[in-house]
């Protein structure tokens, strides 16, 4: 659809601008201001220049949290994307069964983040939780509050439980838009299940998969509540991801300066990834429109 040029459209956007400026630009400016200063009691400030940046960039704390964060995001993407596609292909295509499946698999997406954490906190406990109890009874030593590996497994399982459905729903929307003539043609050609997937379904899912990967990456990159409730970032610092570390610094210790410098660097990374996201999405929209 051709859009017309109309500069007065600015007036329609103005309310959003004012509101988002209030809740985004003013706080961001404050963060920049704080990041160059040391605070005393939260209301007296001294200029320290780039000191906080230098300290953070050379501390292990930041890099360790970033490393854990990247590892977490990669692991959950590697599990959730293939699993999500698999589930999407296995979903019934029509009838009441399809509606029922849709509603059921969407359920985890609507649960408050802290309740997700709590559900798994209970579910994985070896004394009162079903999962923990079964795993322990099978002879494994499993305790997510003591053992770093167990904590990681539990956090990853929780995220897979929470968000795989999102990937499935997106892929399902992509698969459903395939005309049935394609499948009939494939059947006449006696195409294998794999080549149907490879040459019919996967290309149709390309657009939604891009969105799924980027949404999952961004959302896992800012994950806070679920691991905070489940493990509190522990044992030790084993599951302290970027947001958990930042909140500890900002609200726990009220270190305004370092927390602000941390925030700003965190935000710059987000900005970069968002830009890539946006560019890829626009390009894919255009490619689809050109077809």
């Amino acid at each position: 659809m051709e859009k017309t040029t109309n500069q007065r459209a600015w007036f329609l956007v103005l309310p959003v601008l004012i509101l988002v400026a209030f809740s985004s630009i003013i706080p961001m400016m404050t963060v920049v201001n704080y990041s160059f200063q040391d605070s005393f009691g939260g209301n007296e400030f001294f200029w320290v220049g780039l000191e906080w940046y230098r300290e953070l960039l050379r501390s292990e704390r930041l890099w360790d949290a970033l490393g854990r964060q990247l590892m977490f995001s990669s692991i959950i993407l590697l599990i959730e994307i293939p699993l999500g596609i698999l589930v999407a292909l296995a979903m019934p295509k029509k009838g009441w069964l399809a509606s029922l499946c849709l509603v059921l698999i969407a359920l985890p997406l609507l649960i408050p983040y802290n309740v997700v954490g709590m559900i798994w906190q209970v579910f994985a406990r070896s004394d009162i939780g079903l999962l923990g109890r079964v795993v322990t009874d099978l002879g494994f030593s499993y305790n997510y509050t003591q053992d770093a590996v167990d904590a990681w497994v539990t956090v990853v399982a929780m995220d897979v439980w929470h968000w795989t459905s999102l990937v499935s729903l997106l892929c399902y929307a992509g698969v459903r838009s395939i005309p049935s003539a394609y499948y009939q043609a494939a059947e006449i050609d006696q195409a294998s299940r794999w080549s149907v997937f490879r040459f019919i379904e996967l290309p149709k899912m390309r657009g939604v998969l891009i969105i799924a990967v980027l949404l999952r990456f961004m959302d896992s990159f800012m994950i806070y509540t679920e691991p905070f409730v489940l493990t509190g970032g522990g044992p030790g610092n084993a599951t302290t991801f970027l947001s958990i570390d930042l909140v500890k610094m900002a609200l726990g210790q009220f270190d305004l300066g370092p927390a602000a410098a941390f925030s700003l660097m965190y935000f710059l990374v987000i900005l970069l990834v968002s830009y890539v996201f946006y560019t890829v999405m626009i390009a894919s929209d255009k490619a689809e429109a050109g077809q």
Partner: protein
Amino acid sequence: MTKRPLPSLIMLAYLLFLLLPIYWLVIMSFKPNSEILGAFTLWPQDFTLGNYRTILTDPSWYMGFVNSFIYVAMNTVISLCVALPAAYAFSRYRFMGDNHLFFWLLTNRMAPPAVFALPFFQLYSSVNLFDTHIAVALAHCLFNVPLAVWILEGFMRGVPREIDETAFIDGYSFPRFFTRIFIPMIGPGIGVAAFFCFMFSWVELLLSRTLTSVDAKPITAIMTRTVSASGLDWGVLAAAGVLTIIPGAIVIYFVRGYIAKGFALGRV
């Protein structure tokens, strides 16, 4: 196509994986604490509604739900009111900086709440809005307004321009056209946007916990504070958890066809 058993098996296994933890939460909410901690039972032996009674009669619990509902409703109304005209502008017109604005909105949706927790705390304290519902509602606009704009824009793109043009030729003024013709036409879109604003505000914890202490404390914050205290009352906690799932579970049926669209910011 011939019916093969494998897809059904995969689906069944996945649903089992999804529903088991929820099942565990639900049955826990019907057990007394002695049974939760003392005996390992797959089904409540000593069925009780006491946990729910505690929540519905104790103001420190049920006020959490009331507070959550208040700021979530405020947030949904504010987000939709400002997002509707903006989404219309983005879907219909080309104007200076439109792409950049659209991108900037996206970055706000993607920004980690952890980055904003501290400055929000300082901002709302300085304007004396700390611990009020409106503070949380405004804070959640950070990600909900961009979300609403993107979703609504996706729906509005599907409405042909000819409708606008015909209405303007018929002498409708812009506000009259917008409220009388256009808004009813994208009714489902508004419903979906409202649902997602409601949901993302409902599930969020970090900002709502940071910006409240007593008067506007949401149910999610009350739950985490109870977790950190010693002597956990697992039964009541589980009951509160079940109650927080219910609003979403009721509405989900009506928007089931649009869930993917909503999460994908209207891009599907």
